[in-house]
């Protein structure tokens, strides 16, 4: 199951923690100290063989050096102040031939937390290469064993031939201490603003910062030292409350940044806090929407999640190889798969959109292949897949979309998706058509979905091919008057082909949604998503899972702080 989530709060770092003073502001690693032991062990590794078996035909070493920190505050006080440095070594060994080797779609190499001294790194490279080779030989035999019963209708190569790359990018500049100091002041001030809203039960202002450098060395001659694929920094504001009936309501805003100066001004951030609080207040007073099928407008963010789930994941190249996957689009190259007024592109080379640095941007993928702009669907016609070095019928080469986190084997993934509308209309026109559709179908109202917490989508045939998108704000739009009413309690669900087919118009308001992290078999990777708002002739809204809890018995202590008596319900009965 592939998951798309907003870069979630509260996900613990999975790496070892070090004390702050150990981290120095300048990037401490010299490239040659990483590559020297790698080159030495790679030369030895290529000659290793178990009797009766061939030596590896391919070796790759990938090392990711990470410096990261996280600072959180809640209602005015720091709740978290962590920093860490870690180093992850990942090794891939292939035996056999490109036509048939030890890998299959579940393949993973070996990884460890590596030491930073050159000698210890060399020892780890030696032992891990040994392990990886032995398991590659075992994997090769296991694969041959499976083929004794499995029928392979379309034999495909296991590894594409690519040109090797040598590249050295600049080292990251990490001003960790300086930035930490600024966050320790800013975040309590921002989070304290939530105290003015007694109905906010939980809230946080959190910043995550990550600098990393990735080293890739392959036996084919690729040698890359460059920034790792990640979102450098993101400031999150989040809050939750419960409606009078106990339903949980969340609000979330994120501000990705590369340099401190990318962040909005403090005034703008305070306004964002207030906006979240207002959204929660509006939400808890909103009526519960029963399940319904109706015409729906998706704003640009929801549209981008729809395309991510219903189309993007299903165009990942490797999924076309495995009959366990849904393979909806496998044989449809050259055929119409979405309405012809739309195109779908993935462009990891796009660095900046409307002045904002795009988080799905990278120069080389995790296999060292240069990033490429790929038109996946052109005017409705399927043209291409998201290719890693797993070949697919008719697509023998990578197009620079082999992505992974530091621990996993790369597979074809999205970078920055772009939904292009060829006959765009204004948002006002979209809404006019929504109401027209409602009237034609005899529906009293349609819906407007704004913003998304993420989506979810099964990729295996075993599961029914339905997917869902959880909107942040849902408005009911009256067909007769156009009046908007905020409602709550539903999500959008559907089957992918039907939903995409029902996009009857798209807006001229393309925007970048920049704070999503995509999770799939090869780990969590940041993605950029550019899309306009769209009108669906019909979509099904289903109830969200019930998470009901009695609201607090006593009112918020901050009521007293504001000089009100505890039994004063405050404006609109807030408690």
């Amino acid at each position: 199951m592939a998951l798309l989530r907003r870069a979630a709060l509260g996900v613990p770092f999975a790496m070892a923690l070090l004390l702050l003073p150990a981290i120095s502001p300048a990037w401490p690693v010299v490239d040659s100290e990483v590559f020297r032991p790698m080159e030495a062990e790679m030369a030895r590794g290529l000659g290793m063989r178990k009797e009766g078996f061939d030596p590896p035909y391919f070796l790759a070493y990938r090392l990711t050096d990470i410096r990261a920190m996280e600072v959180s505050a809640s209602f005015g006080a720091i709740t978290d102040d962590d920093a860490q440095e870690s180093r992850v070594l990942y090794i891939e060994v292939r035996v056999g031939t490109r036509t048939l080797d030890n890998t299959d779609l579940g393949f993973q190499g070996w990884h460890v937390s590596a030491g930073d001294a050159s000698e210890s790194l060399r020892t780890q490279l030696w032992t891990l290469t040994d392990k990886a080779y032995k398991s590659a030989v075992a994997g090769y035999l296991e694969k041959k064993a499976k083929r004794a019963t499995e029928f392979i209708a379309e034999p495909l190569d296991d590894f594409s031939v690519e040109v090797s790359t040598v590249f050295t990018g600049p080292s990251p500049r990490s001003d960790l201490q300086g930035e930490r100091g600024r966050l320790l002041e800013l975040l309590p001030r921002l989070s304290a603003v939530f105290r003015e809203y007694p109905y906010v039960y939980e809230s946080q202002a959190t910043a995550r910062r990550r600098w990393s450098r990735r080293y890739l060395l392959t036996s084919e001659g690729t040698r890359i030292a460059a920034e790792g694929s990640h979102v450098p920094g993101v400031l999150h504001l989040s809050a939750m409350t419960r409606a009078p009936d106990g339903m949980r309501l969340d609000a979330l805003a994120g501000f990705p940044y590369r340099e401190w100066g990318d962040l909005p001004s403090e005034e703008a951030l305070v306004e964002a806090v207030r906006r979240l609080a207002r959204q929660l207040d509006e939400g808890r007073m909103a009526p519960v929407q029963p399940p319904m099928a109706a015409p729906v407008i998706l704003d640009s963010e929801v549209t981008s999640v729809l395309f991510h789930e219903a189309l993007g994941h299903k165009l990942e190249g490797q999924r076309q190889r495995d009959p366990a996957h849904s393979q909806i689009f496998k044989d449809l190259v050259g055929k119409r798969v979405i309405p012809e007024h739309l195109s779908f592109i993935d462009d990891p080379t796009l660095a900046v959109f409307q002045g904002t640095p795009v988080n799905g941007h990278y120069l080389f993928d995790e296999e060292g292949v240069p990033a490429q702009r790929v038109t996946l669907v052109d005017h409705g016609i399927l043209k291409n897949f998201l290719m890693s070095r797993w070949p697919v019928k008719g697509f023998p080469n990578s197009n620079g979309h082999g992505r992974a986190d530091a621990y996993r084997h790369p597979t074809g993934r999205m970078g920055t998706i772009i939904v292009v509308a060829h006959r765009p209309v204004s948002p006002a026109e979209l809404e006019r058509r929504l109401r027209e559709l409602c009237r034609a179908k005899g529906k009293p109202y349609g819906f407007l979905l704004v913003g998304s917490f993420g989506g979810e989508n099964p990729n295996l045939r075993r599961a029914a091919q339905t997917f869902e998108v959880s909107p942040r704000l849902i408005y009911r739009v009256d067909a007769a008057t156009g009046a908007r009413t905020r409602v709550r309690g539903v999500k959008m669900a559907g089957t992918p082909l039907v939903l995409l087919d029902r996009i009857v118009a798209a807006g001229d308001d393309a925007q970048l949604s920049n704070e999503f992290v995509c999770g799939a078999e090869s780990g969590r990777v940041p993605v950029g998503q550019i899309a306009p708002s769209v009108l669906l002739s019909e979509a099904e809204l289903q109830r969200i899972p019930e998470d009901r809890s009695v609201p607090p018995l006593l009112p918020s202590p901050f009521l007293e702080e504001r000089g009100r008596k505890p039994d004063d319900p405050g404006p609109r009965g807030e408690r």
Partner: protein
Amino acid sequence: MSLSAALVVLFFSGSFPFFPLHASAGPSALPQDALDSAMSFELARSGGLKDEGYPPPYYVGLAATDLETKERVCVMGRERYAADRRQRILTPDIRVGSPGMDNHPVGMPSDMAGRSVPFENDLFALRHGLWRLMDLAYKSASADYLRKQALRVSRGKAEYDFDDFSREAPNRSARAPDRGGWDRERIERLCLEGSRAFRKAPGLLHAEVSTALSREDWRVRDTEGLSVDFSRDIAEIELEAVDIATDGLKVAVNSRFLAAAEIGLPGLGEVEGAVREMMADLAALKVAVTTSPFDAPAVLDPSIVAAVVLSVGTRLSGEEQRNPSGTQVFRDKLGTPVLSPILTLVDDPTLVSFRNRPLLGTYAFDNQGIPGQRVVLIERGILKGFLLSRYPVIGFPRSNGHGRRAPGYLAVGTPGNLILSARETVSEEKLFELLRKELKRRDKPYGLWVRKLGGFSQSQSTGRQDALRVSARLVYMVEAKTGKKTLVRNLDVVCTPLTLMENILAAGDRSEVTDLVAGVPVSVVAPSLLVSGVELQRSEAKPEKAPILPPPPAEE
């Protein structure tokens, strides 16, 4: 990838849950007074079930089910499996608290509540079994009640929460268990001879016929004076065959006969006919094309419509409206349109037959001893009612006799005979005309014709998307231009229920009966439907190499 626990899989896995206690079969003609006595003794004693500091029961119900099952599996005209099983299951329903709030599970009861006891009539052995059973049931009822109170403290009362137990008049109906009526040898002959018919296709990878005759004698008693006896029999004959296409994908077909009485059994000619049809369908499927999935308007035959109707039926159970982890798709929709206005859906357990064909979901009393009643669920598209056990729903304080479940489980609002009828119908021919018209209107090259239900599964929890997936034996692409039908294979049909139900364009004029098992036997009477959109999905199939040698030569 985790599958939700609430995923209801009904892939025609009809066999009733059996306790791990097996015994050889024998006719049981003895009067079962010892069981009656044991039940009434222990029910009378249940008033004393009270632990210090815990509330006593306010109601105790007890259901005894005598079960007898005879199973055969035959391959190529020979038996490969035979089992005769007999057991007796006692299921207590002990309530503590009050009818306003008691220990009934929040939402859908799903745990096994029954236990097997000796099926021989020895008063002490039975009372001993009952004594232990009731003691354990009381203790867990007390614990469940406290946990439910605890949940109420943190979760609060939902707007749809309501009483937990409806007040009903104690019915009395005695009926001596009917031990005759079935020609067991005839069922065995159908198994043997039916499977022999597959010898004409020796190249099949797999072909077998299984038969099962299950008989249940129920006695329902409670502390309010209810005493109801009834029987529930079901015979099933299932045929399955598997072949392999040239691309290594297996093609499988199945066929099934269900009967609640001897008279409903098929003749040998009918079974052999089904085998011939399966072989012909397999031969066609083996050379049929595969296609990439697409979405399109579709004509669904009555058996496919039956799967959709049953999935609507299970969502209309009273428990489902109050199930916090269910989809609650119909909650708050009473009196509003939920289906095309040409359609009406009724559940009628009192209906014995449809066009002379006996129905399977017919019963006089449900598992809680309440008489089965005809219920209008959806009238001209408007939601009117629910399938109710004694677990009421706001606005519906009484059971309507649909508390059904397999032996050992607590009753849940469950369909009996679901009847979908259409106010306006068109001929089959016209249905396809309308399909092509719809295709042209939407500029689609192909539509679908989905026939002969193979199985279906649905997810019915809010943790997942609410979806229905149907495996049909025959799926045809219907060309918009010419109307030409092309058989395709290894594709399932998926849809989301609301969208499907609201987008029914036309109904056929010939209704048919489809028998299904959803824990208990259910019949669905439905016409063909033209729907505006379903989506195809590749079925789960892993290519395999075909057999290396040809099949052995047939002797006949």
